[in-house]
């Protein structure tokens, strides 16, 4: 077995409290199974997510980062936080390549409180995708530099 196959990625999920976190809860209530690779961090609004958080997460060894918020245009509990997230994360995705990180490792998803299914599907899909990508390249660089 190659090392890549045994690789279990670690994914950090920043979820907004009102929609996406509730969606993740609904996946639980509905007992929808997904891989145990995600570690969820609750924030009040996707607009709270600083690109720096995402970069730090990658620096700390995350193999993927999921940012999830309320659906556009108007599900946001804080009126427009999701738009702010959209702009920031879109920009950040573009910049990621410069750090040597594949942009696919960062995902922005809109997940509502009634989309337990969707949340599980996103985690499943993301885990698969990152498995294919292999570990966070920053980690390897670190190993090499040591």
């Amino acid at each position: 077995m190659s090392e890549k196959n045994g690789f279990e990625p670690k994914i950090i999920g920043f979820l907004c409290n009102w929609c996406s976190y509730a969606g993740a809860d609904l996946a639980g209530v509905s007992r929808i199974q997904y891989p145990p690779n995600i570690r969820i961090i609750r924030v009040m609004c996707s607009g709270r997510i600083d690109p720096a958080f995402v970069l730090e997460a990658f620096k700390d060894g995350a193999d993927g980062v999921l940012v999830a918020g309320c659906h556009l245009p108007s599900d946001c509990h804080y009126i427009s936080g999701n738009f702010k997230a959209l702009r920031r994360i879109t920009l950040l995705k573009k910049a990621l390549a410069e750090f040597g990180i594949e942009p696919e490792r960062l995902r922005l998803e809109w997940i509502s409180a009634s989309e337990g299914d969707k949340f599980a599907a996103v985690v499943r899909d993301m885990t698969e995708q990152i498995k294919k990508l292999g570990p966070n390249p920053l980690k390897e660089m670190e190993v090499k530099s040591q």
Partner: protein
Amino acid sequence: MEKNEPRIACLMCDFVFCQKEAQVPRNVNVARVSCIGRIDPVLILEMFEKGTEAVMLVGCKPPDCHYVDGNAQAEITISILKTLMSLVNVEPERLKLLWHSPTAKKSFSRHLTEFSDKMRKLASLSLKNINPDTDFLVNISAAKKVAADFRLRVLLGREKELTESVNVYGEKIPFEDFDKLLDEIVQTEFIRQKIHVLTSVKPLSVKALAEKIELKPAAVLSHIVNLRRKNMIAIDHVDGTTPFYKALEVK
């Protein structure tokens, strides 16, 4: 063993088993168990799955039972298995429950021989097994899942209590009503499990499933809805306007 000899498994309560001298036909294998109530319905189906063509259960003739009502439990098992077998499309007469006692007038060997003769007249199951057109294996594995399903088993376990004594509200459930309910559940669960088995091989559409199961697509869809509810199935992909479903692993 001659070819075309039906392979028969005989499970026998040890309290019946004392005729060591009994002549057992070569195509029959007799296994002793502590009590015929010990037999989990799943096991019988597993025997069929593994190539047994008929199964005879031999228990103490009611009301004799060293364990008070193990034979009554066996009767419940048999009745549910017969329903399942007809759904699987295996002749229910391939399963026989014989009440016997070591001193019965008719010898056990004769029972065995008669059963074996009867089975010989039926078409071989192993042929069904080989023929890819029949879905024997799919059916039997669905049936096994039904027999292993909590929903059915909890009712089987409580059947005697509910029909002979009273339920939690102090009401007695007429046996016929309970039987009807069990029958419905078995029918329903069998179709659901069959859908599950079929879609675990490859993703299938409602229409394809309907054809395979010979059921109206609407009914198939409603079963899929309920399988989804239990997280046993999910949409795999959509091809044009047709969703394809894939079974999800159940523990």
